[in-house]
């Protein structure tokens, strides 16, 4: 474990005090189940668009698309939806550089859009994503898939597909690390200490 920790790219350190709550196998199983759930509730892969919220949500959306294709045999369009410019806390935080929004060629009009993110917390990111989405078109339906739901919602928002419900305290920090994004083993950890958060 400590060996792989050294490979963490700068800016995404892993707290050495943190404990692992989901390992690579748990994450793989959770994503596989979410893929099945999405297909089940949509009755197939028709009209589906997966939009990840940068940055790790995009990685997760891409993995879900692969899993859905394995099950259903059809490729599902994947994109990214940046929410930076729709945040409600722009004034109280240092300026953030927006990331790219990439909408698949099919657009979102009349589609079933599944928003994908790593952690669901206050719900403010999802609120911003819904606003960002409405500027892009009018989906038939919008659903939410998250790897971890840690509770403490501040808005009337809930996820349709959850990898793992993790009861946490405000003082804790949930860290998601994905191989494709961070270069280290897929893990979800809980660390003590103040969870500075953009969503609040």
């Amino acid at each position, binding site marked *: 474990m400590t060996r792989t920790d050294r490979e963490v790219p700068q800016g995404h350190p892993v707290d050495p005090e943190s404990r692992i709550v989901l390992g690579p196998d748990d994450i793989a199983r959770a994503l596989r189940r979410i893929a099945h759930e999405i297909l089940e509730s949509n009755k197939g892969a028709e009209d589906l668009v997966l939009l990840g919220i940068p940055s790790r949500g995009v990685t997760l959306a891409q993995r879900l698309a692969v899993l859905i294709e394995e099950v259903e045999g059809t490729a599902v369009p994947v994109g990214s939806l940046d929410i930076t410019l729709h945040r409600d806390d722009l004034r109280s935080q*240092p300026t953030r550089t927006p*990331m790219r929004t990439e909408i698949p060629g099919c657009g979102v009009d009349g589609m079933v859009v599944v928003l994908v993110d790593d952690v669901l917390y206050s719900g403010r990111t999802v609120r911003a994503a819904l*606003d960002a989405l409405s500027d892009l078109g009018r989906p038939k339906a919008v659903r939410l898939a998250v790897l971890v739901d840690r509770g403490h919602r501040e808005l009337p928002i809930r996820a349709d597909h959850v990898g793992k419900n993790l009861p946490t305290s405000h003082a804790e*920090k949930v860290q998601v690390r994905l191989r494709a994004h961070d270069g280290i083993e897929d893990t979800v950890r809980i660390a003590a200490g103040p969870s500075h*958060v953009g969503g609040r």
Partner: protein
Amino acid sequence: MPRHLLSAADLDRDEVIEILETAASMHDIQRRDVKKLPALRGRTVINLFFEDSTRTRSSFEIAGKWMSADTINITAKGSSASKGESLRDTVLTITAMAVDALVIRHSASGACRQVAGWVDASVINAGDGTHEHPTQALLDAYTMTRRLGDLAGRRVVIVGDLTHSRVFRSNVLLLGTLGADVTVVAPPTLMPSGAAEWSRRDGFVLSHDLDEALFVGPAADVVMMLRVQRERMSGGFFPTAREYSVGYGLSRERVERLRRRNEDVLVMHPGPMNRGLEISADAADGLGSVILDQVSAGVAVRMAVLYHLLSGDHSVRDQDSGREGTT
């Protein structure tokens, strides 16, 4: 990010790259049906233009509106300035209405820096006399990076009326920050005094011979032609327009020769162009011309500048900028 944008030298390399990356996101938005972002909702931006402008003023106005800021244009003609009000009084009157940013164009070099000392609002220099025009340099850099990627080591030749050009000054500073290899070319009468000392300090090359700058040594990646600013000239800078054009104009022959040395050479001009004087129609409309790309980048880059200067709490430092644990 600094509070004001008065000079291209106000930005370090990371800040420039951040603005250019943001501009790329903003550029995508221009292709959408709904060109509106809520990021600057409730902010007020005043465009205060004491000099004529079409593209800079309109692009700042559009940029502000697409970011949901309230933008108001004030031009010298039709404002109290024409009744003899001083710059200071005009600016203080406007900022008394609680505005967040002033975008200023003025014929006096240094006017924007002076205004920045009088007001609490962010001041953005949209061209001050023959001094600087930083957002033009940013959109030029954006246009170049879109085509060339990293500008470090790229060869940029800037040609024309350097004495009167604020575009040249801001570009030399910004391209220096990005590590480009810059050569500037002008007839001796249009080379600003002190340029030799400046070029030694900032590491760019001066030349009076366009053909030598273009066709000797490594091939140019970008040729930027500057407008001959007749409105700032009282005559005597060059004998005839024809002579200027032969010596320093980007003729069809020169473009063809350039393209033989580097097929992908970019031709730029900040506009408005004097066709047939500093640039031929073949060069302006031919392959490799990115002059219209520069115009289209103008809005995106100005959106990015407004965003970085006006959103966000500058008193909070960036230690917490990760989105970790959010949602």
